[in-house]
């Protein structure tokens, strides 16, 4: 689905969401009558310092003046790979965006990510993975690392990597792999109105606390993460 189709299907009662140089921002009316902040990255735009500061500005303004949940639409490239972005401290700008989203979520502005295109690496961490619930749309193509880069570093052929990817979701790109990890909570049906799926999710939002490791265990993608983090937590609480 294109961004326009998604916005129309999500918000049949109207929206004022605009796209400017790959940065998406605005507000929309929910079926239930409430308002929702919408931000995002479109057109497979790389997330650099300029994009990150604009996005976090929208969220911070909305924390001050707005209300309602926050939707983060994601069709991005990776983080912007450039000398300028790193020189200026891209890690701080991406972390800032993630922090602003996490803070909003913890303070009455529940966040939902909607991954409808590509995303990768630092861009995904600062957007979709910084939300409480990350939803995928069929056709989304997240790739934490792309297979050609992986082939170069691991010195394995593409064929060998593709063969291994059949037996594990742990490294290869793809929406269903991220779903098995617990990163993507659910995949929506793009043949049905997105508005009703959004309303259903908002009516039944999971608690703010991070259960992605437990999801990853349930779905078989991450056999150890939930148990290890739980054990360390328990041991740490005992020594105080």
């Amino acid at each position, binding site marked *: 689905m294109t961004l326009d189709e998604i916005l129309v299907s999500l918000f049949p009662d109207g929206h004022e969401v605009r796209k400017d140089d790959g940065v998406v921002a605005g507000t929309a009316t929910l079926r239930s009558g409430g308002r929702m902040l919408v931000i995002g990255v479109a057109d497979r735009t790389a997330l650099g310092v300029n994009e990150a500061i604009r996005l976090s500005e929208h969220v911070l303004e909305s924390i001050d003046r707005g209300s309602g949940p926050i939707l983060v639409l994601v069709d991005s490239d990776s983080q912007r790979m450039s000398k300028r972005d790193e020189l200026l401290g891209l890690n701080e700008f991406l*972390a800032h965006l993630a922090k602003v989203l996490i803070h909003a979520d913890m303070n009455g502005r529940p966040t939902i990510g909607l991954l409808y295109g590509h995303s990768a*690496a630092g861009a995904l961490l600062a957007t979709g993975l910084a939300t409480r619930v990350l939803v995928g749309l069929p056709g989304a193509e997240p790739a934490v690392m792309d297979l050609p880069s992986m082939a170069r*570093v691991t010195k394995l052929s593409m064929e060998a990597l593709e063969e291994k990817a059949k037996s594990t979701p742990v490294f290869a790109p793809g929406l269903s792999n991220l779903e098995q990890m617990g990163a993507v909570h659910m995949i929506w049906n793009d043949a049905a109105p997105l508005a009703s799926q959004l309303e259903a999710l908002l009516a039944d939002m999971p608690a703010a606390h991070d259960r992605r490791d437990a999801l990853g265990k349930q779905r078989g993608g991450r056999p150890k993460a939930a148990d290890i983090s739980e054990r360390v937590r328990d041991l740490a609480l005992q020594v105080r």
Partner: protein
Amino acid sequence: MTASLDDVARAQRARRTSFNEASARTRLELMLDAGSLVEFIGPEQREVSPHLRIFDLPEQFDDGIVVGHARLEGSPVFVAAQEGRFMGGAFGEVHGAKLTGLLRAAREIGSIPVLILFDTGGVRLQEANAGELAIAEIMRAVMEARTAGAKVIGLIGGRSGCYGGGGLIAGCCSALAVSEPGRIAVSGPEVIETNRGVEEFDSRDRALVWRTMGGKHRRLLGAADVFADDTVQDFREAALELIGLVGAFGPDRLKAEHERLAGRLRRFGTCKDAVDIWTAEGVADAETVPDLPADRFIALADRIGRTSRDAR
């Protein structure tokens, strides 16, 4: 008084030991009060990565990270130290989950600071999806711990630097100390060169790498609050200083951080090189900054006075 005698011996060794060259375990042993470290899920438990076997790669019994409880100048701290020589210190499923669990305990207790000794290239490629998600969980856990009152201090001076998602976690910390060899960035030099060409970034130009991503630049930008000389003892002192300086987290900090970063873009957004930024900051002979010894550099950075205090 044996404990204090042990600590004198520890401090002597810590002063002679390069943080950069030491292993994760040696860093902890020499940085923390003598004999105080209690490790959680240590190597004897053999909780190795469940994924490296798919690639026929060797495992490490602690999956490249030590987490535990210890004392610093008598006060309790939680600590995590990445081993930068094992798979570049990269985040895998188990490695990341140990840090997540530690931060979740810090959130519940609220008053015990967390020291993270970063030494990482970012996500472990062979388990990229699990590593990426582990980083996302850690970022969330850092912010929850800080919101609950815990201070989370990042110490960066290892061989693998603090790259990729490690750089984003560092950006979530309450404060950072960095040494000259401690590089902080998202994309590594080779990654930029591979994707954008050698004209964009020449990864073999080491001087360019250091002045773009290295500790001195990060300190002058105010991205790190303390510059440590490359000894374990200096990092211990930096950690103590930062624990003393950091205040409580709140929404005002995010607004201040926004102003700090937006101001940086306005001021330096058109600079082509770190030397241009340092010159714009009023550093005379900015091109000599990479050669300054630690004491003179610290004096310079203090005079410029840019920090992220109360603004991160």
